[in-house]
């Protein structure tokens, strides 16, 4: 028994027939071919699957595709605009905020939401804000630095100027 799911991802509209038990993360990765969002666990701990859905960061492994009917979704593939990196992406590059890169898309989307809610977070607020995203490579030190760099850039730099 199939359901129709219509949603928008990174500004593009999609409509597909899906199995009711299809996870949103599989729909993004397998149906839509957006493999930037990763699967790291099976208990909703790791956050590698984090996307932004209807303005909130969510774990796409714990949402059924059918629950995303009508949703506005942003994934890591939608962060850069016209080839210009989002300050968070730039910050992760500048500050060596990634090593293997597997947690990185989820981290970026969680950080995106964090900075939307709190544009000037302290180190503690960043660390607390990332408690839903595990990284095994970096020890988080440079991830925190990257997010602080991005926050500063978004408040005061070229990104802010362009807005």
């Amino acid at each position, binding site marked *: 028994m199939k359901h129709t799911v219509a949603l928008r991802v990174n500004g593009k509209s999609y409509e597909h027939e899906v199995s009711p038990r299809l996870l949103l993360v599989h729909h993004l990765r397998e149906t839509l071919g957006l493999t930037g969002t990763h699967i790291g666990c099976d*208990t909703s701990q790791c956050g590698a699957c984090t996307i932004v859905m209807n303005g909130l960061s969510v774990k796409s492994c714990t949402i059924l595709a059918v629950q995303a009917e009508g949703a506005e979704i942003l994934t890591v*593939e939608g962060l850069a605009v016209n080839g210009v990196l989002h300050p968070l992406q730039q910050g992760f*590059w500048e500050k*060596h905020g990634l090593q*293997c890169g597997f947690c990185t898309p989820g981290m970026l989307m969680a950080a995106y939401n964090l900075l939307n809610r709190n544009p000037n977070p302290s180190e503690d607020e960043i660390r607390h804000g990332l408690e839903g995203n*595990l990284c095994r490579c*970096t*020890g988080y*030190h440079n991830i925190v630095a990257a997010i602080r760099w991005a926050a500063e850039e978004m408040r005061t730099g070229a990104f802010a100027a362009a807005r």
Partner: protein
Amino acid sequence: MVATAPLVGQSVRRKEDPRLIAGQGRYLDDIHLPNTAHAALLRSPHGHARILSIDTSKARALPGVVAVYTGSDMKDTANPLPCAFTAGGVPNNLPPHRALAVDKARYVGDGIAVVVAEDEYIAHDALDLIEVEYEVLPAVVDVEKARAEGAPQLHEEAPGNLCMHWTAGNQEKADAAFAAADVVVKHRIHNQRLIANPMETRGALANYDPGTGELTLWCTSQNPHIHKLLLAAFVLGMPEHKVRVIAPEVGGGFGSKIFLYPDMVIVSWVARHLCRPVKFVETRSENYLATQQGRDHTQYVEVAAQRDGKVTGLRVRSLANLGAYLSTAGPGVPTTLFGRLVSGAYRIPAIWVEVEGVFTNTALVDAYRGAGRPEATFLIERMMDLLALELGMDPAEVRRKNFIPPDAFPYSPADLGLVPYDSGNYEPALDKALQLVDYRELRKQQDEGRKHGRLLGIGLSSYIEICGLAPSAWMQAQGWGAPLFESSQVRILATGKIIATTGSSSHGQGHETTFAQIVADQFGVGVDDVEIVHGDTQGAPFGLGTYGSRSLAVGGGAMLRSTEKIKQKLIAIGAHLLEVSPEDVEYADGAVSVKGAPGRGKAFGDLAMAAWLVSSLPPGMEAGLEAISYYDPPDCTFPFGTHICVVEVDPDTGKVKILRYVAVDDVGPVINPMIVDGQFHGGIAQGIGQALFEGAVYDDDGQLKTGSMMDYAVPKADDLPSYETARTVTPSPHSPFGAKGAGEAGTIASTPAVVNAVADALSHLGIHDLQMPLTPQCVWSAIQAAK
């Protein structure tokens, strides 16, 4: 021809990052081939059971299921997975490990059957339809119980559940030292079992082309050439030149992606059978059950010393849990990489080590970041603190008193049969760390705090470690059934762009950047003119891969050999074009120039074009600018340093807060400081994880109680501090650039620094025996018990 600052030594932004921050990295599960079938594994729910029958008929009948296979189907056309690193010099019992169990399941997670279906949802549905009749047997998970009389026996081939009994050192000397000692300190340490937890789980995708007879396997590998050789020559009996293994983007490994796994064998075997691609990706829960775990030593340690703090003897007996079967390198880790390293940074004249490798009904154990050296470093660093406590001495001074002095290098620990420590200078690192934390002030704060019930603790760890693995001859004598050289192939193309292929296999370490820095400097080109290629066995010389912090020390050596060979040809071409003798020119700043006349030269780009056009080459010279090299290191490398951890323990909750973490490390000269710091950050995080948060726990029936991320505490961002890193620089006399290797030292150093800090916070309460992980419950209970 303008001189530019060398790239080596600079924190060049990573070339890997643009694709990874855009979500364009192609990891195993991102790779799609048409007509791929998905495999799911039925795993034993019992820790120990005879397999009486398997009925796959209902599973095979489920729409969308392509096939179901069991161990019986595979056993005549797939050999057991080999063990390639035995404990050298002693008999090893080597029971077979089949990809799918045939007679018995020996751990929860042991593969029983494989379902192949049109998609992974159907494949998992079909697992529930397979009916297996088991005769459940008693299980044993504890090493001491497994070695006891009457214990359940896992393998006929291993009576008493023993793989091997291995020794190192001089027992007579050690016994004499203990008999004559002023002071003897004894301790039992459980270096607990850990789960590696790379954020990407493991997987494999196999494609067999019946037309060419070629098998291509993509897999999450730290060493694709090793996987290719083991699969082709040892397990599947396929011609080596018909097998290609590709490591795509790999999302972390920490050792767990070194080994040959049943699922790699299974998808390859099934792909050959079905002649369509077959993909397997493990869930995280499967990763916990059936991907190799780390550590799990039960150690009895004794230190003999004089009253002035000089250590005169060290005796170690360790039972190393190997799990239900032998992993690819299982017995080698607790012997060569642990037993020979127990004396650490100290000159100890009498040492005796005994190690037993023991089978239990648990997941297989093998290398995990540090591989034997964390187990050795924790042991000796904990004992130095316990000795200091016993003697009423400052732990920094006890260390200083026993350090191998700087004029003693190359240094071989007494009777341990180790390749010599290449270089070291331990006191400056200790002093720098003490100065960075303002040690004397901290001790004052600690004393003051104790008057008000504040539990502040300071923990030291002055470590050495062995990496840059390794001279092949020495490793083979240790029981390693392979060489340990590294390879490179460097090619200069017609337009002056460079492709450098390495046998190293980056899975987060940034080799595409650091090797490019090295190669670019050698020829005087930009870092973006160099492409580092790794991971695909096709067309690449055999390489041994990335583990044991060897990629720079050994992979870099091979890279430099190739660049040097090419430079010789560039000099010959340049001299010919300049119409001078090769002795009169040199290669520098991207050109061949007449010595003493740098304005008169031939630039790299012109030389590359000449090598391609051929017509202006010296008579008899072939076209092309390329070289293949292999580098077998003459020794290992020995990074060292001192880490200091400052903690505060909450007496009401037992929670440990890390107030400061200072790491002073010496890895020799550093190619990319930002990347090296990153390796230390991540390494320290894992070491803190072992000290305070992590531990894989089995119940007596062999059920993994910490079976998911809900129960196994991988540290989160708000569990960890920021890290203060500093360096001393003591080059290795033999390695490329004098560099030593940095990937594991953070993990090796940090666990004892943290545990020593907590013990230091509690020692005035009479608490000295603390076993990891030091969870709030563990610490709180110890405080209560001491009241």
